[in-house]
């Protein structure tokens, strides 16, 4: 037969108060269940992209607050500034300014990026010293000069490229 805790949980589940937590509690995991939101009913949220939430922030109102809500039904010119702010705070949790406030996260992000740049730089330096073989002899300035002369002599890319930038009459690079 069903155990007593399971029966109690069953009635509660029927009332729609508990959700999945009820099933887990009935199976003896009650110590490990955190409070869960019931996602099947409308929620309040502070979201920049959807400015009007589905429900007001304060659902249950005290007597004073109920009176204020009644006053709100009349002309808004009768409301003082404090009353308007109070009504706002009843409806919403944070203002747009509070919601969109800047943080200091960018400093951490930028710092992390630069740290990795530096670390990579160290690795590259170590590679150049300990890993790379000696450069080929064709990369010496002397060889490169002879190469440039050969490229100009054979009129390499003479239209818009390399040799087009050399002035053959004056024997110098074009200004």
């Amino acid at each position: 037969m069903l155990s007593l805790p399971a029966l109690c949980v069953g009635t509660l589940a029927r009332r729609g108060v508990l959700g999945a937590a009820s099933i887990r509690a009935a199976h003896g995991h009650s110590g490990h269940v955190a409070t869960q939101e019931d996602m099947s009913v409308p929620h309040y949220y502070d979201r920049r992209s959807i400015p009007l939430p589905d429900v007001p922030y304060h659902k249950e109102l005290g007597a004073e607050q109920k009176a204020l809500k009644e006053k709100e039904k009349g002309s808004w010119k009768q409301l003082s500034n404090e009353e308007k702010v109070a009504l706002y705070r009843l409806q919403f949790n944070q203002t747009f300014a509070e919601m969109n406030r800047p943080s200091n996260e960018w400093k951490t992000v930028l710092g992390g990026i630069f740290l990795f740049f530096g670390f990579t730089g160290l690795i590259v330096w170590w590679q150049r010293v300990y890993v790379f073989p000696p450069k080929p002899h064709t990369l010496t300035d002397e060889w490169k000069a002879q190469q440039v002369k050969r490229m100009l002599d054979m009129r390499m890319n003479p239209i818009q490229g390399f040799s087009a930038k050399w002035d053959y009459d004056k024997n110098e690079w074009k200004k």
Partner: protein
Amino acid sequence: MAHPLQLGFQDAMSPVMEELLHFHDHTLMIVFLISTLVLYIITLMMTTKLTYTNTMNAQEVEMIWTILPAIVLITIALPSLRVLYLMDEINNPHLTIKAMGHQWYWTYEYTDYENLEFDSYMIHTQDLPNGYFRLLEVDHRMVMPMESPIRILISAEDVLHSWAIPSLGVKTDAVPGRLNQTTFIITRPGMFYGQCSEICGANHSFMPIVVESVPLQYFENWSSLMLS
């Protein structure tokens, strides 16, 4: 060949390459325009004070950004097809040369009149004469007459290779057991360098191609010299 830190294409040494350069300019301009537009829209989106971003009706803009890209694509496709068909036009080549790819050198056969065949190996860095180009020079260059339509038949003896010369706008795969044909006209005298363009083993980067384009007289002198 390319000069150090070169970003763009090498100058065109054949009419087809000229057409390719112009097509590339046209397409790159379109690409730059689109990229600039997108970047501008991104900066607009990142710096707006407007916050409501739920999906809204957008029929008109959806029409625009469907039709306009279609038009852009047609604008790119028409010149592209034109150049493509230009490359395949029937011409009557004055000369036919066979280029055979091996691991890891090329063999050129000029067999129209006599039987001229030779191998073309890369010159190693330690053996380079002063001022020569590392990994680009060969011991026997492929000499061709300028301003003549030339047909090259390309194949391979062992694995896939590819015969490519950027300044002539030529890249043709060398497939063993298959003859691929490419034709071009070289408009200027000079030396044009290329490298094997299909991975073919350990020395794939070390089997370059050098075309030396000379007036017909010099070509005839060279071929008689090579035969003897």
